[in-house]
């Protein structure tokens, strides 16, 4: 049984060239839970929420000014407009590009690859998608501020942090959702000038369907509507509030998550048969905390975790064990991770998962002592090309976690091409014959070793190692 390879690749992100032999796989993994650093230097150095929000505000201001002055502009000024817009947009995009590069560097360098992999898992579970203009700049910050600090705590805290981050509020339209009978909406209605702003159920529905209970677990449309009402008032300062912008507290900095009482639907809400009559934002918080420990949530999260560490059809005993653990501990995440490591199912050699482009690239880079890319390599663009653009799954469901999601013919060819390109850069500065036992460890088969040894050049050997059937899997 290839326990060393599985520890490094199924639980981790592939063995680093300087990692010692993993002679106690379970102990190695469990120790990482305590050693986890939620804010490694390269991540901590990234721009914060306010700087990112400022880029958006500047962009919006410029657009507004342009619109206002459009009539008075000379042809020359008009001709410059698209270029100006592009520059402002690129300031927003810069945050995305920088965060992408930092994410990769952190993953390649981390001494605690198991928790790092869990960061990626949870960021995908609570997916935001940067294909929405308002999310691009915040996507990396979302993972770093809402996900990273909470993966070693309770699921409920992780849930609340994810839901309250501006990226999530903007992505799932919460920032524009107003209570239909809120003081604000009532006032607009009474003036009769235009249609009163109202409810947007998007965030409430996705929290129930994707983030907690799971689809078709018994909640009704009425539950979704009531939950959406409970969430009203929660919005982002300075961005995307539209008509409600002037209700913003004077001291709120752009990009901050704020609760505005005048936007909140007054009164009690009944959700899943339980009555919530807390005042203000405590109402949504109470619903979230109940959803976070619901038995359906326990099962849903157990199923997703189990699939991630076993395969397309997670073994029922493992799912049951994780769900029981979740219920018993009230959603204590490190307890779930320890249960996973201690369970036999994730250590089975079959069935195996196919590495995602992200997992595969990270594990390749971890194996190499020499840099595989130039300093100017556009990491964000590279993953787009590989079919897994970072923080851009295109749906709040995140990237699907099945073999068929990533095992495609064009995808395979792309990996071979990237491996060849990397190998070309490395040339003979790495010896694939020595690298193979380190990287593939106890999963190295005589066939693969022989095939690599028979390569016609050091570079070809490296390409074959990274394209080998074992290394493509985890």
């Amino acid at each position: 049984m290839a326990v060393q390879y599985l520890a490094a690749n199924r639980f981790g992100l592939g063995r680093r060239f300087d990692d010692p032999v993993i002679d106690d796989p379970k102990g190695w993994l469990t120790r990482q839970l305590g050693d986890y650093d939620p804010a490694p230097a390269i991540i901590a150095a990234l721009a914060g929420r306010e700087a990112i929000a400022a880029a958006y505000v500047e962009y919006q201001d410029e657009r507004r000014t342009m619109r206002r002055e459009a009539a008075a502009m000379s042809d020359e000024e008009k001709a410059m407009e698209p270029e100006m817009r592009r520059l402002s947009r690129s300031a927003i995009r810069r945050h995305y590009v920088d965060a992408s590069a930092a994410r990769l560097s952190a993953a390649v360098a981390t001494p605690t690859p198991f928790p790092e992999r869990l960061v990626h898992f949870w960021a995908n579970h609570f997916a935001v998608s940067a294909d929405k203009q308002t999310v691009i700049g915040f996507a990396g910050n979302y993972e770093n501020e809402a996900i990273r600090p909470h993966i070693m705590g309770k699921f409920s805290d992780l849930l609340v942090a994810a839901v309250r981050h501006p990226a999530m509020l903007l992505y799932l339209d919460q920032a524009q959702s107003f209570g239909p009978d809120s003081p604000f909406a009532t006032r607009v209605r009474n003036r009769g000038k235009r249609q009163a702003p109202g409810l947007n159920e998007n965030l409430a529905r996705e929290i129930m369907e994707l983030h907690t209970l799971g689809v078709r677990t018994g909640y009704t449309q009425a539950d979704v509507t009531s939950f959406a009402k409970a969430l009203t008032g929660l919005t982002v300062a300075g961005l995307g509030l539209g008509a409600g912008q002037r209700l913003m507290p004077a001291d709120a900095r752009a990009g901050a998550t704020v609760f505005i009482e005048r936007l909140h639907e007054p009164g009690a809400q009944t959700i899943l048969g339980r009555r919530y009559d807390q005042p203000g934002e405590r109402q949504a918080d109470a619903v979230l905390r109940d959803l976070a420990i619901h038995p359906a949530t326990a099962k849903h999260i157990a199923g997703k975790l189990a699939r991630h560490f076993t395969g397309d059809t997670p073994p029922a005993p493992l799912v049951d064990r994780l769900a029981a653990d979740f219920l018993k501990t009230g959603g204590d995440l490190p307890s779930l991770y320890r249960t996973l490591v201690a369970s036999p199912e994730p250590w089975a050699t079959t069935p195996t998962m196919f590495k995602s482009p992200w997992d595969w690239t990270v594990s390749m880079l971890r194996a190499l002592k020499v840099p595989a890319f130039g300093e100017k390599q556009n990491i964000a663009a590279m993953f787009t090309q590989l079919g897994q653009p970072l923080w851009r799954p295109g749906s709040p469901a995140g990237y699907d976690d099945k073999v068929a999601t990533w095992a495609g013919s064009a995808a395979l060819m792309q990996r071979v091409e990237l491996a060849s390109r990397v190998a070309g850069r490395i040339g003979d500065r790495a010896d694939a014959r020595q690298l193979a036992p380190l990287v593939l460890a106890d999963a190295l088969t005589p066939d693969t070793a022989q095939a690599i040894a028979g390569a016609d050049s050091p570079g070809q050997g490296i390409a074959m190692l990274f394209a080998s059937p074992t290394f493509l899997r985890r």
Partner: protein
Amino acid sequence: MILSRRSIILSGITVAAAGALPGFAYAAAGTPKRLVFIIQRGAADGLGIVAPTGDPAFAAARRAMADETAGGAKLDGMFTLHPAMAATAGLYIGKQAHFAHAVATAYRDRSHFDGQNMLEGGGSRPYGRDTGWVGRLLTLLPAAERDAIAIAPAVPLALRGTVQVGTYAPSRLPQADADLIARLTAMYADDPLLHPLWGSAVKTQELASDIGGDNGRNGAELGKLAASLMVPTDGARVMMVETGGWDTHSGQRGRLAAQLRGLDQLISALQTGLGPAWTDTLVLVATEFGRTVEVNGTGGTDHGTASTAMLLGGGLEAGGKVSADWPGLSPTARYEGRDLKPTRNLESVIATAVAHHYALDPKRVMATLYPDA
């Protein structure tokens, strides 16, 4: 900064546009001999390229595709050249083209990679040789005529041997690293997930890297590039050009025409680019095996056995001729009832042509290029 041609080749710098290269000025070389080996990866259909229109069984076997060569040049009483090869037809009239038909290597199965390995390696079985016939030929040539280069990202098997050769991969002309592909094919052979994925990936890439794109201009650019690397006094004397996209299992009519248009323009651009040196140039076009006599259910042909090889250049031994010990196409005359039967070794066609071109002893050439024969 203007780099010399050699430094461009050896440093592996790729130019953005292949077409920009001939803009450099180079003194035309004197007389040394030049050899260009163009491989058609994917098993080109010799029956569609040089069609035996005079064979009574041909029309029935090819059914709707029998008129694929309609409008093409009549080469003799039996054969018609595909109409997409107009420039090549001109060479034929000027006795600068020769077609060897019903030829095959010693390979008798129908795997591309094995077939290509035999064609390039010149061994008597797949993966029997780790050097290639061109690479071994280099050892027979005078030092001044040994400079060899492949327009490919890595040295193809055919060029491997004791003599150092260069490669050149312009970014505009994507080429598969055929050897890595072949090795991975072997590596994935027993993997139920990867084997079919890879098969389909390779097929797609073969189609994507064809020379028939852009109405033949891809081929013309490749020819121009090849000539520009061979014209200078210090340029390459031996070259290998890889072409993919010949695996016409379906929709052969359009695809083969596009491929041949590209090949025709490649040859034409090579001739133009080489100028006076064309007189001392031998171009050899060959494929790993042929395709079935009968058309399949999707307007294409499947993997077969014998095919056609082309010899082109200014000093051929038998230009303006189709040489064939024609086996006929009736079902009983076919190889295994389905393929054009090989009646001559491709190996001897190549060795004879090369020996004549370089004025070398044919026996010695044969023994060097094909030591297992």
